[in-house]
């Protein structure tokens, strides 16, 4: 019902003119990518879903400030990421939930149970290490590693100079490497 071939730009122009329903295809189009980003930031399904919803609502309300011609998804990410950072700071924690669905998937594959357990443990360790990262490090890593935004785009999303993007990413990776060692990620 929300499928449309209309471009982001056309849809946003319609929303700006007061056609609220033109926003629906944008939600459909970007809800899953945004969910992934939010999930990587909070490692918790319920929180990630709430954050995605909040981000879309905020984006809709701020649509008058969106400059036509710029990439909508990057703009949406900025709203979502800022909102998530605020949320994390307020909550002062990232709760890593046991990944149940993953377990089902692995069972479905009928793989080696030992390997399965090992994989699950590894993933939990990685998630815990990520959760321990300061939120600005985690944010920039998610934007780069997960979403593969360019430094230029990240600089616009986070409103920091491009040089800072490079140095912060380098520091974030170093910090994560330390945390991986601490959490035993590298242990076979």
């Amino acid at each position, binding site marked *: 019902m*929300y499928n449309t071939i209309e471009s982001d730009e056309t849809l946003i122009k319609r929303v700006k003119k007061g056609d*609220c*329903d033109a*926003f*629906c295809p944008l*939600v*459909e189009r970007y*809800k*899953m990518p945004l*969910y*992934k980003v939010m*999930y*990587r930031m909070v*490692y918790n*399904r319920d929180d*990630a*879903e709430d954050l*995605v*919803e909040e981000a*879309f*609502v905020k984006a*809709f*309300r701020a649509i*008058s400030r969106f400059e036509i011609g710029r990439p909508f998804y990057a703009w949406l990410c900025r709203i979502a990421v800022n909102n998530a950072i605020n949320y994390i700071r307020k909550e002062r924690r990232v709760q890593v*939930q046991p*990944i*149940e*669905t*993953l377990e089902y*998937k692995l069972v479905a594959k009928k793989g080696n149970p030992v390997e399965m357990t090992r994989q699950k443990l*590894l*993933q939990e360790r*990685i*998630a815990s290490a*990520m959760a321990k990262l300061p939120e600005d490090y985690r944010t920039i*890593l998610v934007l*780069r*590693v*997960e979403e593969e935004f*360019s*430094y230029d785009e990240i600089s616009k999303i986070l409103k920091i100079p491009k040089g800072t993007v*490079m*140095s912060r*990413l*380098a520091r974030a*990776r170093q910090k*994560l*490497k330390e945390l*991986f060692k601490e959490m035993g*990620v590298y242990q076979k």
Partner: protein
Amino acid sequence: MKCREERELLSGYLDGELNDEQRRKVERHLAECASCKKELEELKQLDEYVRTVEIEEPTREFVFSLTRKVMQNVKKKPRFSFFRLTPMLVPITVAILVIIVLANIDQPGKFVSLDDRVIYAETETTKRDLDLHVPELSVTRRTPAEAPKDKRTILAEKKASVAAPPSAPAVAKAKVSEEIGDKREAEGTAVSDAEERMEEISATDVEYVEELEIPRDIVVRAIVDSNGRILKVATGNSIVPEKDTVLENRLQGQQLKPPVIRGRRTQLYVDFTQKKEKKD
């Protein structure tokens, strides 16, 4: 730690975000430094690890009804954003509503009682501006056939002044003039255009008012309905005259020319006053 500078660039190199000079520098260094080469491999692995963390499937509710929830949420508070964006629309809307309500007050069939305090400003407005036809009070003898030749007493000028603010019912003032030199006992036909027209209208079934004496500086206010019939009469010299039963009994039901404002019949307050004599 002589590789420090190059190590800082490794992350950018991995992401392909270095400029040509930086990239060549790192590549030259990697060719001869095993430690940095190992570091680069570790960084690649690190990214792989980050990507391997499975993302939990979102709930069915999220997948199927997020859009609906977002749109509900968005439409829930449209007033908030609407008013925040355009605060000027609030007073404008209120003003428009007030005007609409007031414009409908004067519709035919609606009555304004004398008990209602009519507060109006005495702003003079020209007749042309308002397209106002002031009802004229026909004052002739009982027998129109032997109508007096001279202009008799009442009602000459249609110098209309209308209550300016839309908050008051339209008020028209027809100043009753007594032409200098006119004698009441003198007989004659009505010669003024106004009277002629009134006679046409009132010729059907109207009882004419014989004569109306209005003391100077006293306002006779009549409420005239949209058909030109006098409903109520009051006298006084204040803004809100008092009900005058005697005069009302005489004038009630008398027919005037239906008052029209802006091409629309309307109920009016009509004030009759005696014109002051001109001093020579």
